[in-house]
């Protein structure tokens, strides 16, 4: 199935990691994305172009923990409880989101509370307390997130994060952004201080602000951030992950009642790629998030009733089980193509995996029809407005556009979709999705049983409560014996306690 050409193509992307640091010697204007408007809501997105790729080896999780201590810890003058107390009547907060290459602090306030609110933000940002009690609590929260929440309370997110760990093995993206259990256990408050001093600089900050703020506020806001250390401008080049040919399956074993499935491979394109609109259209057609109009959902859930939903992505989208639209400010140089098959009954797991691979291979082979192309293009041209329907998300998308070096997202997407042709889309499918080494993660109880089913290649017929259409039954006959091209040695079992270790 997978050709040698694809392997070679994958190898071409294997460039060494590259990060050139240029010291910022003299005062240069800070990077800003200001969107003044008449809104009495003021939205902040204060971004630092640093993230888990800057975690030193053995200190994975440091970037995220540093951001957590700033946003959920005390300052030099106030305990965290006093900060919460001050935010309380304003019904607001100041939160942090850390990803691979960026850390973004997000907050909203009414303009009449702006001075009070910003005074707190300024103190948190510039005079963090780095208190031992906050460090202890937040490091434990991070550990419990990995050990309890991810490993044991949410099979779907577990499967997805494990997929990223495997695809990016040996790559700067490898670890979960929260870190690893073993590295978090060793982190110290001194590590946090050092990370803050090195990475929270004028060179790395991008200030995002929207709403009805005054020029005076804007000037004070800028002046404050000009007091940060200059730092070094970092020109990063994050390489494509290395991969060996062939399908890899990792079965995570844990005590659970169903089987969660996630699969994918490095995409070789991100939002700034000229082919992004085509790839976004393909993902939407094949598996628009939480939408019943997409192809895969129709086949696996609607016609067969095997699970709750089936989706596809060309950009990282964590916590998809809790939200309809992705959060902005998770921009990455490298993205994967991902298929998410929501948990199935264990006896249907082998079939469901075969169905996903069968449909994916069909997508690569046949591409989209003219009708599907047009319908998806029309959908996306309108749907982009939903992504930016709040002031804060609009600001977030503007920051992402700055990161990728492109114009306003909605304007760009509408124009690009209008120009897009079916041939562009089908060419992009062949180029980016064709013959890729697929990594598959399955979370289930009887891992050995599932492994032997998959490696034996035996038929996996499915029993329905109700007969689906003849068309589906005919397709099932192909799917139940669909060959999964995987060597037995490439089907591994991982006890859950080893994941994120």
């Amino acid at each position, binding site marked *: 199935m997978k050709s040698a050409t694809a392997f070679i193509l994958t190898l071409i992307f294997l460039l060494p990691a590259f990060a050139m640091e240029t010291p910022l010697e003299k005062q240069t204007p800070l990077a800003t994305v200001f969107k003044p408007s008449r809104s009495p809501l003021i939205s902040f997105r204060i971004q630092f172009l640093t993230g888990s790729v800057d975690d030193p080896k053995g200190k994975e999780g440091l970037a995220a923990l540093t951001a957590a201590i700033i946003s959920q810890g005390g300052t030099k003058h106030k305990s965290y409880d006093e900060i919460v107390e001050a935010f309380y009547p304003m019904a607001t907060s100041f939160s942090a989101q850390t990803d691979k290459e960026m850390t973004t602090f997000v907050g909203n306030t009414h303009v009449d509370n702006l001075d009070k609110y910003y005074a707190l933000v300024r103190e948190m940002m510039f005079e963090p307390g780095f208190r031992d009690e906050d460090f202890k609590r937040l490091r434990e929260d991070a550990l419990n997130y990995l050990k*309890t929440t991810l490993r044991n*309370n949410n099979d779907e997110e577990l499967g997805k994060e494990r997929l990223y760990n495997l695809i990016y093995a040996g790559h700067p993206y490898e670890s979960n952004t929260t870190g690893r259990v073993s590295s978090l256990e060793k982190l110290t408050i001194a590590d946090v201080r050092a990370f803050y001093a090195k990475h929270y600089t004028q060179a790395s900050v991008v200030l995002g602000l929207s709403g009805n703020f005054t020029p005076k506020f804007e000037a004070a806001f800028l002046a404050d951030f000009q007091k940060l250390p200059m730092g070094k401008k970092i020109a990063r080049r994050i390489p494509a992950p290395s991969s060996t040919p062939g399908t890899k399956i990792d079965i995570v074993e844990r005590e659970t009642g169903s089987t969660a499935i996630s699969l994918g491979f490095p995409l070789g394109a991100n939002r700034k790629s000229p082919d992004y609109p085509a790839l976004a259209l393909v993902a939407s057609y094949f598996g628009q998030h939480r939408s019943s109009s997409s192809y895969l959902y129709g086949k696996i*859930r609607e016609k067969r009733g095997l699970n709750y939903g089936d989706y596809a992505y060309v950009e990282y989208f964590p916590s998809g089980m809790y939200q*309809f639209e992705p959060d902005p400010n998770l921009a990455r140089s490298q993205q994967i193509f991902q298929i998410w098959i929501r948990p199935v009954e264990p006896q249907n797991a082998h079939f469901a995996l075969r169905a996903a691979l069968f449909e994916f291979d069909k997508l690569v082979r046949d591409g989209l029809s003219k009708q599907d192309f047009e319908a998806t293009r029309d959908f996306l041209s309108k749907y982009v407005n939903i992504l930016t*329907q709040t002031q804060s998300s609009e600001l977030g998308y503007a920051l992402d556009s700055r990161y990728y070096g492109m114009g306003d997202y909605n304007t760009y997407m509408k124009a690009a979709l209008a120009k897009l042709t079916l041939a562009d889309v089908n060419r992009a499918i062949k180029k980016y999705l064709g013959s890729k080494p697929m990594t598959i993660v399955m979370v289930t109880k009887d891992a050995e049983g599932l492994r032997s089913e998959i490696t034996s290649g035996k038929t996996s017929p499915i029993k329905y409560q109700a007969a689906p259409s003849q068309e589906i039954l005919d397709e099932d006959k192909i799917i139940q014996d669909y060959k999964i091209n995987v060597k037995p040695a490439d089907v591994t079992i991982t006890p859950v306690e080893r994941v994120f270790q």
Partner: protein
Amino acid sequence: MKFVILFLLLFHLLVLGTTAQSRKVFPYNYTIDDLPNGLRLVVVPTDYPNLVALYTVVQAGSRNEVEKGKSGYAHFFEHLMFRGSENYPPGMFDKVMQKAGASSNAYTSDDRTVYHATFAKEDLEAILKMDADRFQHLKYTEDQFKTEAGAVLGEYNKNFSNPFTKLEEVMRETAYKTHTYSHTTLGYEADIRDFPNQYAYSWEFYNRFYRPEYTTIVVVGQVKQADVLAMVKKYFSDWKRGDYTARIPSEPAQDKPRTAHIDWASPTLPLVTVSYRSPAYSDTKKDKAALDLLSIIAFGENSDIYQKLVLEEQKVDFVAAGSEDHVDPELFAVYSRVKKQEDVDYVRDEILKTYKHYTEVLIPQKKLDETRMRLRYGFAMAMNSNDAIASAIAPYINLRRTPETANKLFDLIENLTPADIRDAARQYFTENNQTIVTLSYKKQGGGE
């Protein structure tokens, strides 16, 4: 302009302290129109451009599942509403939604089922027309019905890797013995596995509750009321009123405290929940509103117990109270996740002490005022798009069929005194009203 209303709204907030009569937490000039068949239309014109939010609220949720073995049916039925109708065969629904660039879905809770979609405003008529067809002429075969039952089982499976789902299930069945709040909206696994055998019942459910007198359509966006009303009249006027009223068994008074424990088969941190029977939603009686405020003051992120258990002693990674607005008397529940097994009893006792404390002391006036302000700011700032506005009022529409109830509720809150809050705590946080449920890891076949 887009922001004028929001500005007025927030301006109102600031003068609240002095002009108690005029301020409205829901500041939009909405309209209400009732069709002769009982269907209600609420239109909320805004200046947020491009998109329109359409929420259809059906006053039927898992509370309405009165027959034994039928838990989870309202939610299952929500799924069936996407399986096609007389004039829109399976797949057509998706095509119409796709054409509108819609984000569309639905949810079910104890008291309601809500169908929601946000899409390009020029597509409003096409979507209303399609909705009218599925609400009046739903159509699915027994095979399609059984297939959808599989999807619901999938939903159950995905939720049950989370121990909170089980905790909630056991807390309800322990606290309630006759009322339908004794089961979760998702329903019992055994009932869900039996769904495929209940095709005939599904039509009964549809005929009972998918009726105009149970339904309110909410439209929020840059629209004209007259245009929307004309569309709704055009497509929904033939919908026949029903004649069914569910007899929900009332829950007898609890006569002693109750407890339950769950052994969880996979490693997890211990969970503890302490709940009390509490009142139904009301915008006229003070007790429920008083407890809503208390839930924030006593157990919120700024509370003494949070400071002690989460920040200082660090024995739990969170503690929080949940008390939603319900049609019937509900539970005021406090949840916590404990870091070490040996601290579970201590944490439970700290929660109990906190409940008791507020039956004895008066909350400082300053704290009460700040909490009221927080609630108002929170409500106002959350309404930052057409979708968010519709989403914020959908629960109130379900409770009283008008957004005005939110204004009345906030007026009631404005008049609460520290004594009202203490009295409500005294009335409800009694030992006989109490249910405690714990969950901890126990390896199957013995062990930890």
